[in-house]
């Protein structure tokens, strides 16, 4: 059976083969869902935003000319869809604009997360669920989706330097929390 490339599928959908879009959905649904779940911190919201993102991608696919990777173009839609949802829920200021130092939610929940985590790695993954939107997104894109900082900067519409700073700060925050809870023995 012939395996179609991403480019072939996009061209096919553009020619009017609507059902081929399901192949793109299968390619990206888990990746986009991971990002949305950590941005919106809610399974239901993430599911709805995922549907909206794919719908927007379908409607605007004709404007995708292939100048950038499809993944970058699509993640940008996903990221903006999530931000719009956060803004409409009047949570944007709290979640997106806050810096790590101002993110009291994380520090308030930290003890609870620590007590519920069996080891350093579990603790780390649980903390990521509570990170501010932009910090969570940069880690997901960099580590799970293997995106370069350049691509991340395009998705998040920030400069390359800012994307790098954001990645460093996010890692430093996780590092400091690990040290705070004396997980040193597990780090050797």
């Amino acid at each position, binding site marked *: 059976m012939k395996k179609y490339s991403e480019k072939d599928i996009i061209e096919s959908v553009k020619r009017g083969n*609507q*059902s081929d*879009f*399901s192949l793109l*959905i*299968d390619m990206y*649904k*888990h*990746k*986009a*869902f*991971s990002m949305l*779940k950590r941005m919106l911190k809610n399974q239901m919201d993430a*599911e709805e935003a*995922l*549907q*909206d993102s*794919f*719908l*927007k991608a*379908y*409607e605007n696919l004709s404007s995708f000319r292939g100048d950038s990777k499809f993944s970058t173009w699509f993640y940008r839609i996903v990221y903006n869809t999530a931000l*719009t949802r956060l803004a409409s829920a009047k949570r944007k200021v709290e979640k997106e604009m806050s810096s790590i130092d101002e993110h009291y939610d994380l520090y308030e929940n930290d003890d609870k997360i620590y007590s519920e985590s069996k080891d*350093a*790695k579990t603790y*780390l*993954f649980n903390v*990521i669920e509570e990170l501010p939107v932009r910090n969570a997104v940069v*880690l*997901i894109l960099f*580590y*799970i989706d293997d995106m370069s900082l350049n691509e991340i900067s395009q998705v998040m519409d920030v400069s390359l330097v800012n994307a790098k700073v954001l*990645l*460093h700060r996010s*890692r*430093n925050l*996780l*590092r*400091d929390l*690990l*040290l705070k809870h004396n*997980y*040193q023995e*597990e*780090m*050797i």
Partner: protein
Amino acid sequence: MKKITDEILNKYIDSELSASEIEELKNMLASNPDALEKLKALRFVDSSLRTMEHDKAPDHIAGSIMSRIESLSIVKGKSFYFFYWIVGVFSLMILGLFGYIFSLISPADSGSSSILDNITNYFSSFSISFNLGLSSNLILLIGASLSIILLIAFYFLVASHREFKNSLSH
């Protein structure tokens, strides 16, 4: 390198330091246990994050999206049909109007054999007939109908534009 900063540790993790910088960092770490501890923790964060996996999207999601796309296409198709219907009716009205005006004209009455004369007579009689026609109730009725159709078409144009803007913002 005067001091071991967070930036340098992050650069080390991302393999952005040169061989000489790495050597220098190692020498400094030997006498700086706090920085060494930070580096170990940072390395642990980096290696742990590399093992992270995607969350699984619900199984039904692809089906839900495709059915939304299909229903969207149907709605779009319906609105296109309506647009074509409006355009078709409008065109027929225009043709009807011209047909009515031309029926009032009798260019063959001129008796001239020249095509140019025929055309000249045709339009001169057209002008007279049209002026006469304008005063009739039928022309006023046709004009009013056309205006209503134009207004309806304009309304749907504005509505579809608004819908498009909404789809962009949501």
